């Protein structure tokens, strides 16, 4: 018990209450999410956006800032940004423009980043958090603005001692930065917001949003205030480069606790930029306010204003798939699925469509159960995504139909599923033939096997007869085993019950 206490004390502040209200303190949180767009080419050059190819292979003139080269806006990136804005129910701006943000660093070949400081392409929009996210209340987190900008190059340290290397593959890849209003109040809300944003942006094909490989990055602004004061009265600190949902949670809690600690000790919070050290569970200073750079924002004279017509926006709107919120409602209404099944399917890209193609002509509950337990079990065992699995809708459809028609048993079906997911290309019918599978549907034969099984387990039989109902499943299972899985479970169950009843009558 004492050890447990010690352990608990070493955990970061999460769960210990600063995040909501502690000693009259509350926190205010705003997020900046950087999201890599799923465009094939970079934001301002025709080079491939595959930033993890061999270093410095996807580099065009402007990506290396060759003198005299000029940026050229990739319309696909504009379209993806518009999708994100519409997915968040925000407004695509009729006129937007690009600005230069200046600083010298190896990862910035031009000496500036092209971004949208003054007239971003998107304004407004929100994500609603509620019971589906495990919150006791529901609230909207509003988007302040959404802007298009360039990713930086990657600087590689410590490969060659004494040198820093630059990989320009990522330089100029298209990002959107989504800035929220300070609507978030707790670390948990922040994490749920990010998770929901990931689901949405994946669903509408804007980004992979993988925090582990950097296609989504998160900066957080945190301030605290005393209960009853203005929510925005505290001095805020920015936490940079939080690279997982867990880190977001822990870092916010740790920062809130640090700020409350300072204030209760009569000190002040300085406006600064901080990082998070996961090992100690604390935040640390990375840049004080005095060292804050002056980015000297300037409209980029190489890129004309972007004018977007209402027709174009409507066109993008038409190509948007159903948004997760609506999908949830529909799956509930149309198929009467459980909340858990719906969440599982919505969070896996492509899964809802996979399910629906199967469910229209079959029992939806059974399809859902196969998808969420059997298939997901296999996917997680294989650490694979559904989209990357060789399993096709047609294969699974035939499998489920064969099962429903009693052509195979569920044990056989599960075996086939594994083979399909291993890459088996033959159909269910072909495989049944190849394996020489037949369903044992001769009642007298099953009765014979069941009788033998019961004879081998007299203790269980007598136990059942004394009223130990749970013995029944054991006996059914043993009988199924004895049929080598070729009998249908419902047949075996019926016959075993009959035999036991007749035994009790004796």
């Amino acid at each position, binding site marked *: 018990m004492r050890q447990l206490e010690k352990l608990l004390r070493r955990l970061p502040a999460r769960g210990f209450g600063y995040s909501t209200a502690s000693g009259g303190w509350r926190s205010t949180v705003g997020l900046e999410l950087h999201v890599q767009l799923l465009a094939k080419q970079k934001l301002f050059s025709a080079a491939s956006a595959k930033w993890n190819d061999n270093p410095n292979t996807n580099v065009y*003139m402007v990506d290396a800032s*060759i*003198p*005299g080269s000029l940026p050229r806006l990739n319309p696909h990136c504009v379209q993806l940004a518009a999708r994100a804005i519409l997915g968040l129910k925000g407004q695509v701006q009729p006129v937007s423009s690009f600005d230069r943000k*200046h600083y*010298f660093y*190896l990862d910035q070949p*031009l000496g500036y980043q092209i971004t949208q400081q003054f007239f971003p392409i998107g304004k407004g929009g929100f994500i609603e958090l509620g019971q589906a996210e495990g919150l006791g209340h529901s609230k909207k987190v509003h988007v302040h603005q959404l802007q298009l900008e360039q990713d930086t190059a990657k600087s590689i340290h410590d490969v060659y001692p004494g040198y820093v290397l630059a990989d320009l593959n990522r330089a100029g890849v298209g990002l959107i930065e989504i800035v929220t209003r300070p609507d978030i109040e707790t670390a948990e809300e922040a994490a749920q917001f990010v998770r929901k944003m990931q689901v949405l942006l994946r669903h509408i094909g804007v980004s992979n949003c993988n925090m582990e490989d950097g296609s989504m990055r998160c900066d957080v602004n945190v301030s605290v205030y005393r209960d009853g004061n203005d929510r925005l009265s505290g001095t805020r600190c920015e936490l940079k480069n939080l690279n997982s949902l867990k880190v977001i949670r822990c870092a916010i809690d740790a920062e809130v606790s640090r700020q409350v600690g300072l204030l209760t000790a009569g000190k002040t919070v300085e406006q600064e930029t901080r990082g998070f050290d996961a090992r100690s569970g604390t935040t640390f200073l990375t840049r004080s306010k005095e060292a804050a750079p002056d980015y*000297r924002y300037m409209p980029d*004279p190489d890129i004309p204003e972007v004018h977007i017509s209402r027709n174009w926006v409507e066109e993008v709107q038409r190509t948007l798939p159903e948004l997760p919120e609506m999908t949830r409602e529909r799956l509930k209404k149309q198929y009467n699925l459980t909340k858990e099944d719906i969440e599982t399917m919505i969070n896996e890209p492509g899964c809802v469509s996979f399910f629906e193609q199967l469910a229209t002509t079959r029992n939806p509950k059974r399809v859902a159960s196969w998808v969420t337990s059997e298939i997901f079990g296999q996917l997680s065992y294989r650490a694979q995504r559904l989209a990357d699995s060789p399993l096709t809708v047609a294969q699974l459809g035939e499998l489920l139909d064969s099962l429903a028609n009693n052509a195979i048993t569920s044990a056989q079906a599960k075996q086939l599923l594994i083979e399909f997911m291993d890459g088996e290309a033959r159909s269910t019918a072909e495989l049944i033939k190849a394996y020489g599978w037949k369903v044992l549907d001769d009642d007298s034969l099953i009765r014979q096997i069941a009788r033998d099984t019961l004879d081998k387990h007299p203790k269980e039989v007598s136990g059942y007869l004394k009223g130990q109902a749970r013995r029944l499943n054991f006996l059914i299972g043993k009988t199924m085993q004895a049929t080598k899985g070729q009998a249908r479970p419902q047949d075996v169950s019926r016959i075993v019950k009959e035999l036991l009843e007749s035994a009790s009558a004796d």
Partner: protein
Amino acid sequence: MSLSRIPRRLVHHRCCLTTHSNSPPTVDSALETISQRNPSLNAFVTSRVPAELAETAVADGPLKGWPVGIKANIATVSNSDTDVTSCGSHALQSYKSPFQATVVDALERAGAVVMGKTNMDEFGMGSKNTYSIYGPARNPHTSESQDKDSCQIYDCSPGGSSGGSAAAVASNMCRAALGSDTGGSVRLPAAWCGIVGFKPSYGRISRYGLVPYGSSLDTVGIMARSVQDVQQVFQAVSRPDTRDMTCMTESLRSRINTGSQSRPWAARLLSQNNIEAEKPLAGIRIGIPRECWVEELSASALDAWKQGAERLSALGCEIVAVSLPHLPNALPAYYTLALAEASSNLARYDGVRYGLRKEPGNRGPKELGASRKYAETRSQGLGAEVQRRILLGTYVMSDAACRHFYLPSQRIRRVIQTEFDSVFALPNALSSEAFEKTLLDWASGGRSAGVDALLFPTATDTAPPLLEGREENTAASYVNDVMTVPANLAGIPAISVPVGHKDRMPIGLQLAAQYGDDELLLQIARYLGA
């Protein structure tokens, strides 16, 4: 390089060479002239040797066999090892561009033969061509000193920043040359060297491959001995280019063309190349901007201006006075915006990917790491004037100064654009409503108020001697641009045409027209020259 280190030179032998021969130079004659005159004029900083030129296939086009010079800040690609795109800077002294500028491609497709790269002020920053790693180019025209006691003859500045291009054209080392014009860098050297210098509307010629100075002001410009030659080059290179988002699209060009052609009074001038009429410019209205009559204007420039107006009047033009009240604000606004953009555009010369790279040695605090390398590379790679302009540009964009300098300058720029729009008869094609409305008025026989072109001096005086002041006053030297920067701020076309001489030194007059009205401007300019 400081000015005091430029050797004082006596150049009696060149007096006799300044007369223009009548036949335009060919590649062979240009080669000959380059070998004879370039050592003293320093116009070309790299030039192709006859063997290289012999290997070059010449396209069959309207400029077939024209020897041309390319300013050293325009990217070229050739087999020559010495073909660098140095921008007159130590930072890029041995930099070879991996690609060629769109405008050079277009010239070569039309048959022109690139003879080499021409001298310039580093990155286009200067008005006298004195800020060049190659040393100054020299004006082919020479003047007798004002100093009556010594009666010496001095080398004069060719003007800048496209001084090498101007000197090369004026001395027949090439038939035409490309320059770049951010605040007058084509027109001022053209005026001082006695040739024609044309800055087209912003976006007429692709900037892809032009190393930027102030991107929103930069234009590729054309220099030649006659307006007709400028016109031919312009026709070959004024094309849409998807690689430059600020280059005029085909649809904008045809819109402007429609508007331009639908002026009944200008249609004849636009459609015919040689009008033999007694008053070929009848119907054209020329504005004289009052605000150009500045204190600094020399008597000779004022005389030339008056004579130019009389000449156009004699050819049938109606001459009217116009007012552009904010023109006096143009110079400070220009220097704020151009320098702000320069500080941004030149940030890339950090020595990481190309160009000069210097290690910091043991000086300075170690913990600054990369910053010290950047500082050392840039301190050694960029010249004093470039550094001065970068620092000023960085300052005017800083958080503290932006509101007092950068933002007001942007406002002044818009006001000046609006004022130009208000004096021209042709509406600005970028404001579509006004444009369509005016076209309808013309169709119903109306003639809007407003002028077709403006006439004003290119420079306040003739070319100064290269040794003018031992200590040059930077701010005073910026005044050289007072007549030329308004056209860059407004994005409108402007051309400098030689109209006369004072003390053997050429004088240029400037014509400017509405945005996109380049062709009418060139047609009028043909009649202005002496």
